[in-house]
């Protein structure tokens, strides 16, 4: 039939497949292989069965890190989506109706530009900025704003608050993206639906819960998955912002941080790989669960 189809296909796929196979697929496969081995990164690999996983099971830091992952996994999407929906709704429908048309508030374009900007910044740079914002003396932005008579807040140095500070920064960065995303979704909802409901005397709150929310369900589901995956590695923030990288006293440690330190600081490549395998199954479970739980009939 077509002349030279296979040489063309092979020619076009060779480089991308080779790169992907070498650096991504091979690395993922080796993680499974190394998870049942004891290896420092040098010399021969010694296979030890499930020892690494037994060690994990008995490692307090692992359970602590897992709890922290869970905390971020639950709260990051909830807070970000709630704020994103609120602001998107205010921007798109909050401006009252003129001539029967619901509109966004005045200046909505401006807000959208400002809110979105943090999304463009590298998380590493955001981390450096907020490391200073949360500084525990007067040089920090927040402590500098507090009255002089107050004792400075410790923020990142306080075990009770350190992880919440991380959450706050993740939310700060993410909200704008979801405002724009939900705005796009709301823009595609027909105005007639809002008008009809408004004529029937629906308040804005009713409009939001009865019309906007159900019609946006698909987008919200996507947002949840995205944020869930973002929550799995808050690594840059924790590595740069926190005391002792994951501290104080493990209060901000997450699985990603444990993998990094075991690989590059403690030379426990096998143990790190076992953690990687756990992370693999957690991500998989999370994605499957999210798709299942949030499945709804299309409106």
């Amino acid at each position: 039939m077509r002349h030279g189809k296979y040489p063309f296909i092979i020619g076009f796929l060779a480089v991308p497949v080779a790169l992907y196979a070498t650096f991504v697929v091979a690395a993922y496969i080796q993680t499974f292989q190394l998870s049942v081995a004891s290896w420092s990164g040098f010399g021969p690999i010694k296979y030890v069965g499930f020892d690494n996983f037994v060690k994990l099971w008995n490692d307090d830091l692992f359970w602590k890190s897992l709890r922290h992952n869970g905390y971020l996994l639950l709260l990051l999407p909830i807070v970000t989506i709630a704020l994103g929906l609120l602001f998107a709704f205010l921007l798109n429908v909050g401006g009252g109706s003129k001539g029967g048309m619901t509109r966004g508030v005045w200046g909505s374009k401006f807000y959208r530009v400002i809110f979105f900007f943090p999304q463009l910044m590298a998380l590493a740079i955001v981390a450096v900025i907020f490391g200073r914002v949360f500084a525990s003396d007067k040089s920090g932005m927040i402590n500098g704003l507090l009255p002089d008579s107050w004792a400075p807040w410790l923020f990142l140095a306080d075990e009770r608050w350190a992880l919440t500070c991380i959450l706050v920064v993740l939310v700060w960065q993410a909200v704008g993206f979801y405002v724009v995303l939900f705005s796009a979704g709301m823009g595609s909802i027909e105005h007639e639906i809002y008008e009809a409901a408004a004529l029937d005397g629906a308040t804005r709150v009713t409009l939001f819960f009865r019309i906007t929310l159900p019609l946006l369900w698909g987008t919200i589901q996507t947002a949840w998955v995205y944020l869930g995956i973002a929550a799995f590695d808050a690594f840059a923030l924790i590595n740069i912002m926190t005391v002792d990288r994951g501290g104080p006293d493990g209060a901000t440690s997450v699985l990603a941080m444990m993998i990094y330190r075991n690989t590059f600081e403690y030379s426990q490549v096998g143990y790190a790989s076992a953690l990687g395998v756990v992370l693999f199954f957690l991500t998989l479970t999370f994605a499957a669960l999210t798709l299942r739980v949030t499945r709804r009939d299309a409106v």
Partner: protein
Amino acid sequence: MTTLTAAVSEKKSQKKVETHRQVRAFNGLAHVALVFWALVTAGPLIWVLLASFKSNTEIFLGEPFALPDSFSLETYFSAWNQAHIGRYFLNSVFVVAVSTAGTMLFGSMAAYVLARYTFPGNRVLYFLFVSGLAFPTFMALAPLFHILKNLGLLNSYIGLILVYIAYSLPFTVFFLAAFFRTLPHEIDEAATVDGASHTRKFFQIMMPMAKSGLVSITIFNIVGQWNQYLLPLVIMQGQGADQKWVLTQGIANISTQAGYHAEWSTLFAALTLSILPMIVVYAIFQRQIQAGLTAGAVK
């Protein structure tokens, strides 16, 4: 009858006034919420800009939004020269330029072949690429490091660039395959009848037709690769690595150094230098950037 109409219309107008008042109150609250978030978003950035002109003493006085005593560019010179922000910036530009170009070339080649040609193994390859979307880079960190070490690509731009390309392929292939599938088959066939080769068809007909998709995904990859922190941290280590660091690494390092030398203002100048170009680019292309970054999330 007339009294009834009068009563109804009176009730109607009363309701109108009430709704009007409700709308005004809502509108007011909406603005308060939006202004609040705009301040939360812009506040830390303005604070960084102000602090970049301040002396250490001023920073520690605890008046975050007070204007600096005097404006001088000295901190900026030291950030550029002594802290090497200029070099890190150029390193980032170089790495991102080459790797985004590579990602787009190889990604679109693979996506095109997978989307428009039937051959044995097509589905398997497609799913292999797309499955890379679901898993965090973290889990494969240790093996990735050793693969690079074995290939002699540690601490080299080539290594970093190849890894950037490989890890950008899943989303690029996923997004562009969907895009290439929607392009009309008639033009494809007409070109074949006219005797165009497969390669020529791809570069001269399909690429231009897919332009809007290519622009979105290019922006997505530029922003993503510019903001990378984990991969350079893993790859750019060893002797003389600090010469080859990218911006995120460089800034993170300055923030640690600043703590030892108490040179916070240099850090703030470095941060400002890294943020300003983004603000300028964003101001010019904000529409395209917002569309490009959110394109992946809305189907």
